[in-house]
């Protein structure tokens, strides 16, 4: 069986599945249950400064969107950092670390952007025996209005500064958690790297309003008739997170900077994808808030079985393996030509491929043949866009098939070239390098 043990910036855990800093990791009670269920580590819910703790709203804290059968696809929250006394949290962290020495316990922190505030909290956290700290520069609601969370994460200079303070004042590994509420994720990551961060973790939640109540006209979750934007998470954010992880992983300036992947991870497969794009481990939150801690069993067995099938004996053998496959658009091979093909044995004749193509794309799928309901791709119109594959309700009924070099593309009438050629050299590109004049 594959070895799932994880070594992330020197923090060891029996598997790469950690719980993200969030309600599931707010108390010893929950964390104990999580460890019993098999989770490899936790990011303890964000601690703030010593003193009176923050208060939360007492109305609904979460909102959601659903797919069919009310399957939760995306959730947002307006909860703040821990609202429990600092000392209580520290005591519990210390006990948990003592009870579960083989699990990772990293403490998420958020204090004002002043060096003294960080100097004050770092030693008391270190004293618990925690394995590391995660700087919460991500929460987009509430705390950001007080100059913390994403308010820091949106200013690379602040990220670098605070990271440097932390590195100077603790020997614990420092993981910087990034907000996705920026235009280019590489800048905050570079700042963290410059400040000396041991790793970055991402993404934190996304600014969002999940829905509007059309009777009260209040956004949800609604607190006495009003709502504020909250942090969006869950399966719906995974594509955004994957891209941001990949952007950092392939940025030469942050090459080699460890990444802890977060964002809608629900199954072993999601986790493997994040890891393939360069995440050394992953953090999960919404999935356990939806289904409970037990899902880690599926994640462990799924990842392990996949690794066995693929011949990987340890996770570092596939971490980052997809990174070289991520490219800029301009380097994609324009000579790679595909056509959709409908498997008539699998086709149930719903016609969705036809109407999608007919109404919104390239009029490349017929709806009738010999007077009968029949759906077939017309290669002379098909641009290979893949829309039909996506809207088809039957898996593998429509597949994209690449044309072999040498055959004629019926749409363009041109022979398919076997050589790679991209936009940078394309004759239609005004900026393309021209052949030198004779």
């Amino acid at each position: 069986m594959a070895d799932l043990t994880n070594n992330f910036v020197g923090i060891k855990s029996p598997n790469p599945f950690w719980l993200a800093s969030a309600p599931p990791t707010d108390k010893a009670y929950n964390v104990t249950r999580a460890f019993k269920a098999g989770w490899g580590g936790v990011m303890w819910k964000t601690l703030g400064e010593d003193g009176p703790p923050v208060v939360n709203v007492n109305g609904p804290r979460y909102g959601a969107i659903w797919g069919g059968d009310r399957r939760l696809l995306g959730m947002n929250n307006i909860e703040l950092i821990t609202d429990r006394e600092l000392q209580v949290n520290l005591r519990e962290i210390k006990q948990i670390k003592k009870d579960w020495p083989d699990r990772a316990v990293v403490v998420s922190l958020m204090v004002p952007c002043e060096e003294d505030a960080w100097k004050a909290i770092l030693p008391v956290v270190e004293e618990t025996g925690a394995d590391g700290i995660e700087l919460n520069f991500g929460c987009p609601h509430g705390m950001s209005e007080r100059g913390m969370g994403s308010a820091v994460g949106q200013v690379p200079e602040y990220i670098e500064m605070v990271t440097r303070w932390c590195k100077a004042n603790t020997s614990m590994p420092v993981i910087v958690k990034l907000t996705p509420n920026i235009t280019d994720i590489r800048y905050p990551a570079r700042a963290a790297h410059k400040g000396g961060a041991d790793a970055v973790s991402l993404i934190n939640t996304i600014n969002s309003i999940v829905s509007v109540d059309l009777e009260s006209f209040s956004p949800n979750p609604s607190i006495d008739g009003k709502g504020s934007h909250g942090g969006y998470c869950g399966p719906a954010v995974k594509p955004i997170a994957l891209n941001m992880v990949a952007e950092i992983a392939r940025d030469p300036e942050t090459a080699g900077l460890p990444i802890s992947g977060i964002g809608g991870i629900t199954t072993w497969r999601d986790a493997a994808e994040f890891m393939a794009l360069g995440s050394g481990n992953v953090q999960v939150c919404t999935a356990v808030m939806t289904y409970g801690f037990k899902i880690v069993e599926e994640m462990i067995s799924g990842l392990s079985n996949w690794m066995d099938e693929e011949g990987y004996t340890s996770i570092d053998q596939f971490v980052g393996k997809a990174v070289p496959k991520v490219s800029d658009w301009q380097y994609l091979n324009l000579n790679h030509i595909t056509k959709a093909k409908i498997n008539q044995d699998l086709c149930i004749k719903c016609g969705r491929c036809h109407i999608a193509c007919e109404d919104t794309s390239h009029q490349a799928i017929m709806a009738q043949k010999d007077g009968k309901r029949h759906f077939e791709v017309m290669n002379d119109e098909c641009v290979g866009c893949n829309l039909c594959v996506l809207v088809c309700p039957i898996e593998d009924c429509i597949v994209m098939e690449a044309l072999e070099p040498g055959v004629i593309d019926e749409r363009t009438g041109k022979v398919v070239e076997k050589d790679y050629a991209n936009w940078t050299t394309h004759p239609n590109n005004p900026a393309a390098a021209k052949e030198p004049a004779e």
Partner: protein
Amino acid sequence: MGENILKEGISSGRLPPSQLEKNFADLHPPLDRHEALVEAERCYFCHDAPCQEACPTEIDIPLFIREISTGNVLGAAKTIFNQNILGGMCARVCPTETLCEEVCVREEAEGKPVKIGHLQRYATDMAMERNAQFFTRATDTGKRIAVVGAGPAGIACAHRLSTHGHDVTIFDARDKAGGLNEYGIASYKTVDGFAQAELEYVTAIGGIKIELGQALGRDFSLDDLKKKYDAVFVGVGMGGVNALRAEGEDAQGVADAVDFIADLRQTDDLSKIEIGRRIIVIGGGMTAIDAAVQAKLLGAEEVTICYRRGHEEMNASEFEQNLATTKGVVVRHWLQPKKVLTAEGKVTGLELEYTEMVDGRLKGMGHTATLPADQIFKAIGQKLDTHHAQGLELVGGRIEVDENGKTSRQGIWAGGDCVAGGDDLTVTAVAQGRDAAESIHGALMGETR
């Protein structure tokens, strides 16, 4: 099991009232909101959907299901009623497994079609509960149309005519309007007086007068109507019952299944309906199934359907046949009635002859079987009442019509079971009534149709 169930002969009260109430409850309890949403999500919103094509009234099924899925249930109801004003009844009685649901792509994909009938009921029930009315009458045209028969065809025709601003008078021979919706469908398919509630809901549009106890051929003729009205629509159904052509069929205990079904629908106390201990139902259609299943539900110990042809040829749908067998009815094929056995004028059994197909023709084999019975229901088909022909051309014993429902006589249209070429379904009757109304409207308003 109570003792009454063992009573010989024909008797009422075989089962306690509480059991009867349970037995005759709604066959398909309505979907609740969540069930409806989950089911609606299953619809693929097909292009040029096969289900819509399979529906005789061509309801835009993908659209109404999508409307349900977005919480726009009244929009869904309107989509249904636009095509089929009796969408509520059709949701209950349509053999969806041989219509829309048979061709649902989910049936092809996984053998589990979207429950279109249940969803249609969900939407139409809600509209009726709220009395949401979607149609108004156009400006009064001053035209008056007579509709004969207040069944599905007549009601659908009258409603559509009313929307166009015409005044309609419906004549019906019975004490209650509704036709087979009121008298001819198993009780468990349409509970709680649904047929009358639907009638009220539909006629609420106004401009529709219903004259009950008025029989064509007895109280008036088509010539009378032609004189008084601008157009006539005939939707009289099939008033006659085919004879068994078996010796002794006049014996006490031999009855028409349609009468039995009507009695069940009209009673307010099921424990007063008499039923035998051993029942034979002759026939292979929906009427046979409805009678047999309800005989069983009333407490008959043995119920056997005897059909002279094979399983494949039965008119009753697969679903109906399965329903019968799960309720404990025995279905026997290739048996035709030969002689009703009696003692003191009462039925004691039935002698049947085995049959086979020889060169495409059904033939008796000479071998016989005898089944004990104290009650025999005939369900071997209905025919047009001879008083109803009224000089109209017939084909195959039914009224001949063109694709617009026009009969051989100028100014007279017809639709529903009484016309040739149909399939004896409520939904087809609705489609024919509706389309005839459009044709009448066109003719009266000077359009060429």
